[in-house]
């Protein structure tokens, strides 16, 4: 219970602060954000866009961890945990794609321009889609669990190519691309203390939210299975 209250306060604070704190050229008060050249007011979406993209990868990672666990122990509970995580990952992947497209419209002028990171989030969408297609094609539970576990492991080892290698060697619009001259890594660019604080609070808040959703998700799926077995 205490966690839910903490989470509520955290997300509420991040949402309110992220949207309402003013952006000024020279921040003097604790509640003012600095002006980032080329972004202006639309820099605020970073508090929602980056956490969704982060959770897309985290959810996929968790799904792979439980897939490996399934292949080692052959326990169907692990398969359900992996599947729930993949479902949540799909939701966050769609959210990251949409918030990213909206941000791109206002920052770069078009919704979609095949920047390397846009390509990689699209590839993640395809991977999740393929995973669900595979799951729906197999009837037998054990077989379905084993095949989708293998596929999600194989897919996960291609993710470093998308997330870490391609965006850094290819020309692109995101910070950290190969032809980027004014910024270093993704996070450090010209944020000041309070902006970084809210950014990381948002990351933490969304991660707890993911964990909670995942817990409720796999518990409910387990109960559903149990009820199905009782009445059939």
């Amino acid at each position, binding site marked *: 219970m205490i966690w839910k209250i903490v989470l509520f306060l955290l997300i509420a604070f991040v949402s309110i602060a992220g949207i309402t704190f003013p952006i000024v050229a020279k921040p003097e008060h604790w509640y003012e954000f600095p002006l980032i050249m080329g972004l202006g007011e639309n820099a605020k979406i970073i508090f929602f866009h980056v956490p969704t993209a982060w959770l897309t990868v985290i959810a996929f990672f968790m799904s792979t961890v439980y897939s490996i666990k399934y*292949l080692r122990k052959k326990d169907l509970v692990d398969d359900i945990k992996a599947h729930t995580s993949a479902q949540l990952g799909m939701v966050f992947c769609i959210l990251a794609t949409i918030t990213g497209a909206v941000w791109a419209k206002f920052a770069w002028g078009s919704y979609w321009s095949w920047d390397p990171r846009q*390509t990689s989030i699209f*590839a993640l969408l*395809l*991977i999740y*889609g*393929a995973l669900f*297609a*595979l799951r729906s*094609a*197999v*009837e037998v539970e054990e*077989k379905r669990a*084993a*095949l989708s*576990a*293998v*596929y999600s*492991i*194989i*897919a996960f*080892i*291609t993710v470093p*190519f*998308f997330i870490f*290698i*391609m965006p850094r*060697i*290819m020309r692109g619009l995101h910070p950290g691309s190969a032809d980027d001259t004014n910024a270093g890594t993704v996070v450090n660019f010209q944020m000041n203390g309070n902006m970084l604080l809210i950014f990381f609070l948002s990351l933490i808040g969304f991660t707890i939210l993911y964990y909670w959703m995942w817990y409720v998700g796999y518990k409910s799926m387990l109960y559903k299975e149990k009820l199905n077995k009782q009445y059939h």
Partner: protein
Amino acid sequence: MSAYALFKKDLASELRTRYAINSLVMFIVVTISVILFSIGNEKISDFLSGGLFWVVIFFSAMSGLSRAFVSEEERGTTLTLQLIASPTTIFSGKLLFNLILVFAMNIVVALLYSALFDAFVIKNLSLFLYAFILGNVGIAIASTLIASIIAKASSKGTLYPVLSFPILLPLMLTLIDLTKQAMDTTTFSSSYVELAILGCYDVVMIAASFMLFDFIWKD
């Protein structure tokens, strides 16, 4: 039973029916002619023809390479294979067969393509050759593993490109990029990173395939 014996058995049964070879050749012809029809008398840019080259290869690979495992399921010989050989041997044999098939197919595609498309001119032939070889190896490994998944999931044909595309995407993007570079410059110095990515992809995929194939193969 050795991997080479399995390869010889596959080759013999393939030469008897010529199912995969026929469908591959026809698929290459169909894909290239569809592209030629849609281009018509237009003049396409060099880079576009370089990208379309890999489109032809991807879809041709998707039409024929799943045979390796699907044919065993169809004939009902999977259990026999499970009894007489270890999973590693079976995967090596099937991989060898698919490697030969991919190389033969892609050499045909490359020859046909460069004969039919005026815009497709490679300036740096050795760079293209390195990319071609590393890329073919990657395509063969990934598609063999996905073929084994497909053979176990009862829906045979339709899922294959759906499952393969995301896995092959990093390879394809790098290959398209390298083809552009091979058409553009004659120097090597700017392409080492891309070649390294192809090499990494091949090594990572082959390691993962041999580790994971046991779990697919054993019911």
